[in-house]
């Protein structure tokens, strides 16, 4: 079982390995691809992210402001109404205490009558009492038996005496309903102070607040400065329960705070402190409701952002992959094309060589042919007894064979190999040998070939075949440049300790600076129609491969000099095999 498993695993690994090899890409292409991807990701994603973030912040700000604005207005208005309501009630009490004298109000039936009118006009009043300067309630109308009750020790009595006006916090009063009490002070004819005190239920509070809390998510209530609820709250307890959050201090304008309540809900608290009274109107809304449009938008924007990022990344990856693949293919094609051209160039130089060689060989062959034919003729005509003549014919044949042999030997020396094969070479000899291929043409065109050789020049380690190709190339160009009867000078010399130099100078038509700059470029040719434009570029390649340098110097109508500098020992060469 385990064996089987192992076999499958091995198979899988092999497949994966093969896949890896197929995908393998030279490091520079991988690096190129990585760099392009990183750059493109940076230039697309960074601005996108910045834009998305700025938009999000801006939208959030706008939407919040837009949603908060009406709520803030409602709370402000409600607080104002509430303040007016308290002022109105207070002013009613004030009116009574100012309109009637202490004596009139002290009468139980008068007070009762006024109380009845008050209830009819305003509603919500529960009782009404007159307290004299000693703190004794001397008249009372209401559901309790509070006549003659003394309040002198109570805090509200003292506060009303000092300030002239008093409004209590909410307390549980008649029938266990929340109430507030209000009192105003006045002076009688004797200059003694007395107090008119009224109690009313807080049903009116609810009437004022309820329009704010119409929808079920809104919670609106009143809290005093001690943090005690003065009206029922939907979520934070009933009247007189402590409000579980601290209301931030602030002036009487409307404020907005985003908070988390003790139960962990994210809420928005909008509150407004009353100017004259110790109450704060509070409205609480869950953040998720109020900011719903923002959350929806945020979600949509997030989806959009993620989708854009995915799309961008996909496009970048696929297009970069394609791009790098194309570049790589183009590179490969170029290399192949260049190799093919190099090969074509070799073929064409072989062709050129073959034509020359055919001529060179055919001439001695023609002599051999005639001499052998003559010998046959002599035998046929029975004249073969002239020994001297026969011998001359044979020796001519042998001489011509020698000529042919020289040519084939030179050819063998020219045979090119793939790669570089180093051997010890005498530069002078190579120059002479190579010139041999063109000797006939030189002779026919009456060219003046001069040698200016350093006979002491040391042998160098280099590739014979390739050097011959280079020299033949340059010589062919020189031959093409000169007129019949022109001059070509071949020279060699030692250069420094490590190098030798050879120069081929002609007095031909020369070339312009423009041409000179381009001659080593592939496909550049001045021989329109029959040049491949590759000769000198390949020459350049070979010299570089051999660790040397090639330079050209030319003046129009004066001639051209090619100088090749070759190292005695090629770079990186260790031992000759």
């Amino acid at each position, binding site marked *: 079982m385990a064996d089987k498993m192992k076999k499958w695993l091995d198979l899988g690994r092999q497949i994966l390995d093969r896949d890896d090899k197929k995908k393998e890409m030279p490091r520079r292409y991988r690096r190129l691809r990585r760099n392009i991807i990183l750059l493109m990701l940076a230039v697309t994603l960074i601005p996108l992210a910045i834009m998305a973030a700025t938009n999000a912040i801006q939208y959030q700000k706008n939407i919040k402001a837009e949603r908060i604005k009406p709520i803030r207005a409602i709370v402000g208005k409600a607080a104002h109404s509430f303040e007016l309501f308290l002022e109105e009630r207070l002013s009613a009490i004030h009116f009574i205490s100012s309109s009637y004298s202490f004596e009139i109000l002290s009468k139980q039936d008068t007070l009762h009558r006024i109380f009845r009118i008050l209830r009819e006009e305003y509603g919500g009043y529960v009782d009404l009492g007159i307290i004299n300067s000693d703190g004794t309630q001397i008249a009372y109308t209401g559901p309790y038996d509070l006549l003659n009750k003394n309040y002198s020790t109570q805090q509200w009595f003292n506060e009303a005496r000092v300030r002239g006006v008093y409004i209590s916090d909410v307390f549980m009063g008649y029938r266990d309903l929340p109430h507030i009490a209000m009192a105003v002070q006045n002076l009688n004819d004797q200059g003694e102070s007395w107090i008119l005190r009224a109690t009313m239920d807080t049903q009116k509070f609810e009437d004022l607040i309820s329009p704010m809390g119409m929808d079920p998510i809104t919670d609106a209530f009143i809290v005093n400065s001690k943090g005690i609820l003065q009206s029922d709250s939907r979520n934070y307890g009933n009247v007189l329960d402590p409000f579980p959050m601290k209301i931030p201090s602030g002036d009487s304008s409307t404020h907005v705070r985003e908070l988390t309540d003790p139960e962990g809900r994210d809420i928005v608290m909008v509150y407004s402190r009353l100017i004259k009274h110790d109450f704060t109107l509070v409205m609480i809304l869950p953040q998720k409701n109020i900011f719903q449009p923002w959350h929806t938008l945020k979600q949509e924007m997030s989806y959009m952002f993620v989708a854009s990022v995915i799309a961008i990344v996909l496009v970048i990856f696929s297009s970069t992959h394609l791009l790098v693949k194309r570049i790589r293919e183009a590179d490969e094609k170029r290399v192949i094309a260049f190799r093919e051209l190099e090969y074509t160039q070799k073929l064409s130089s072989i062709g050129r060589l073959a034509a020359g060689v055919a001529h060179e060989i055919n001439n001695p062959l023609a002599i051999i042919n005639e001499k052998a*034919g003559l010998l046959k003729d002599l035998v046929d005509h029975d004249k073969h007894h002239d020994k001297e003549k026969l011998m001359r014919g044979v020796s001519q044949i042998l001489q011509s064979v020698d000529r042919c042999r020289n040519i084939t030997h030179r050819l063998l020396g020219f045979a090119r190999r793939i790669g570089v094969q180093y051997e010890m070479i005498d530069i002078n000899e190579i120059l002479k040998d190579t010139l041999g291929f063109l000797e006939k043409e030189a002779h026919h065109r009456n060219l003046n070939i001069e040698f200016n050789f350093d006979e002491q020049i040391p042998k160098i380690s280099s590739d014979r075949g390739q050097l011959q190709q280079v020299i033949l190339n340059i010589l062919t160009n020189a031959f093409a440049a000169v007129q019949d009867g022109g001059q070509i000078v071949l020279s060699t010399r030692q250069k420094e300790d490590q190098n030798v130099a050879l120069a081929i100078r002609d007095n031909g038509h020369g070339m312009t600076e423009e041409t000179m700059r381009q001659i080593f470029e592939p496909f550049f040719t001045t021989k329109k129609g029959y040049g491949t434009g590759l000769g000198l570029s390949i020459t350049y390649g070979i010299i570089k491969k051999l660790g040397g340098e090639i330079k050209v110097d030319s003046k129009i109508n004066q001639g051209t000099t090619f100088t090749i500098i070759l190292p005695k020992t090629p770079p990186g060469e260790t031992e000759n095999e």
Partner: protein
Amino acid sequence: MNNPIKVLLVDDEEEFVTTLAERLEMREFEPRIATSGDQAISMVEGEKFDLIVLDLMMPGIGGLEVMKQIKSANPDMPVILLTGQGSTKEGMAGMHQGAFDFLMKPLDIEELISQIHEALGKQSS
């Protein structure tokens, strides 16, 4: 053809041209030799030939130029060209310029002779 045919052989390879002349002589021809274009031209001026065998590639004046000059004075003079080059390009060019034929080196002497006869026969007809 009772009189021997008088042929001018022109080639810069002296060994070749003398040997060829000797062999033609054995075959009842009357060959003359020139080893350069200039020599050939001056010889044609002074002497009457039946036919000229002319090498294309020679130092100095080349074969085609020699043929042109000779033909300008003797337009009917038959010329057979010889070429050592492997290609037939130059030979074809020569035929366009009025040569009777071209032959590749090394020569088959029997072929040369039959061409000579053909050229002269064609001319006389």
